[in-house]
């Protein structure tokens, strides 16, 4: 069994480090994911970790083992985010944790929630509206129109799993105070699935047209920047287009990682690269939508 260290801080930036530690895919031996020294994880990190566990079981390997964080506060927080409840499905957990979800922390607008079918999307959208509207308005200064668009973006991001992944996935929503990175609060939607990814989804219809440049990066560009879908129906591809339109209006950021590439629709406040290619492979697709608190004069 190979031991793979989970970064001390697991988020959209450090996922590449975890992916790099996985080696060839699929793994040739069982994995032990060692999160004992992990002291923080974003919703993106938690949902991606679940995707990794799910992907390992889907390639018919024995479930990966996950050594849970040593730190009691971290463990408690992950439990209240619903992580261990979900992780029990796809990992053999090593270490004592409370798997039963209790009250989510106040900054968690949607705990880790599985998305497998359209009914799950209804559930997610219904739940987020009940819980999030007051917090988004009061703490992030988002006007009602922005909170509605937020639920729409969440719905479309989750639907990508149902429509394209070919398997289930996970979603989580949380607010943060990004004091150092932005000096403002943000709300983050993280959606991750262990499915076929953008490249395989578009390959039958698009690979020949693109030619030598075909790969994960080109597939992401087509899907996100040009609204290309594997379906011929001209109404398809509107979900991501709608998300981009919404984020453009509220200075939000979209980041999508699939296979070996990550594409970002990057607002002025962030310094991420628009497209990163030749990254270490990570299974499925990971989407992160970040919306910053609105400044009074920005509206």
């Amino acid at each position, binding site marked *: 069994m190979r031991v793979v260290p989970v970064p001390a801080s697991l988020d959209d930036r450090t996922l590449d480090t975890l992916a790099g530690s996985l080696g060839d895919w699929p793994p040739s031996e069982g994995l032990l994911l060692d999160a004992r020294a992990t002291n923080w994880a974003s919703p993106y990190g938690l949902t991606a970790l679940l995707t990794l566990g799910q992907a390992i079981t889907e390639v018919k390997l024995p479930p990966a083992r996950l050594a849970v964080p040593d730190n009691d506060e971290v463990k408690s927080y992950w439990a209240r985010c619903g992580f261990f409840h979900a992780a029990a499905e796809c990992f053999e957990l090593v270490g004592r944790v409370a798997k039963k979800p209790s009250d989510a922390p106040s900054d968690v607008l949607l705990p880790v929630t599985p998305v497998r079918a359209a009914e799950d999307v209804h559930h997610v959208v*219904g739940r987020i509206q009940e819980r999030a509207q007051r917090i988004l308005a009061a703490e992030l200064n988002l006007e009602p129109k922005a909170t509605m668009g937020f639920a729409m973006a969440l719905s479309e991001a989750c639907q990508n799993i*149902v429509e394209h992944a070919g398997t289930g996935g996970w979603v989580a929503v949380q607010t943060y105070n990004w004091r150092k990175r932005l000096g403002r609060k943000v709300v983050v939607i993280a959606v991750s699935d262990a499915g076929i990814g953008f490249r395989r989804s578009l390959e039958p219809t698009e690979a020949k047209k693109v030619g030598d440049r075909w790969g994960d990066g080109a597939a992401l560009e087509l899907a996100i920047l040009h609204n290309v879908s594997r379906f011929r129906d001209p109404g398809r591809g509107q979900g991501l287009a709608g998300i981009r339109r919404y984020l453009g209006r509220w200075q939000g950021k979209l980041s999508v990682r699939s296979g070996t590439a990550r594409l970002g629709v990057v607002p002025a406040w962030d310094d991420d690269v628009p497209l990163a290619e030749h990254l270490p492979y990570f299974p499925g697709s990971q989407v992160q939508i970040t919306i910053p608190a609105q400044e009074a004069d920005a509206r």
Partner: protein
Amino acid sequence: MMQRIDLAPLLRETVATPYSDMVTRSTGAALRDRIEQTISGASHRTTQLDFTAVGLLDFSCADEVVAKLLLRVAGEEEHYVLLSGITDRHLDAIDHVLERHGLSVAALAEGDGAPRVLGVTTPDVDAAFEIVQRLGAGDASRLADALSWTIERAADALQSLALRRLIQAAGGTYRPLPLPT
């Protein structure tokens, strides 16, 4: 006579969730099937799709329920669609999908006395639509007088409205779609 289809109860019959949101493409496709069945079983020329009590509407569902329905009725002779009960929770998605397909629809927002045009439009189309709503049936010269336009400009705008099924045309006269009472 106008056929009214109340979407909120239709949604509850179509998907077994306690929520009132019109989200997901599969939900939209199932709803559109039900709407098309209802339309084909009646002889009305105008269908009112009532969004009252519908929560959120997302892009995928709007594409199925509004855009694809308009594309379908465009193939039928003289069938008109009017949206009603529209709120801020529906506007963005409807506008977005209609623009994408190059479509327009007449829509009555909650609390408004007169409909407006959603989707693809122009200042002339908007102005002509508003005047037709206000003045009722008439011809190009009446519109030209009301807006101080040339007859040709008024006729162009009316033809554009009629082609988009935003008003009804008969010979050289035009009249607004019937409104719910």
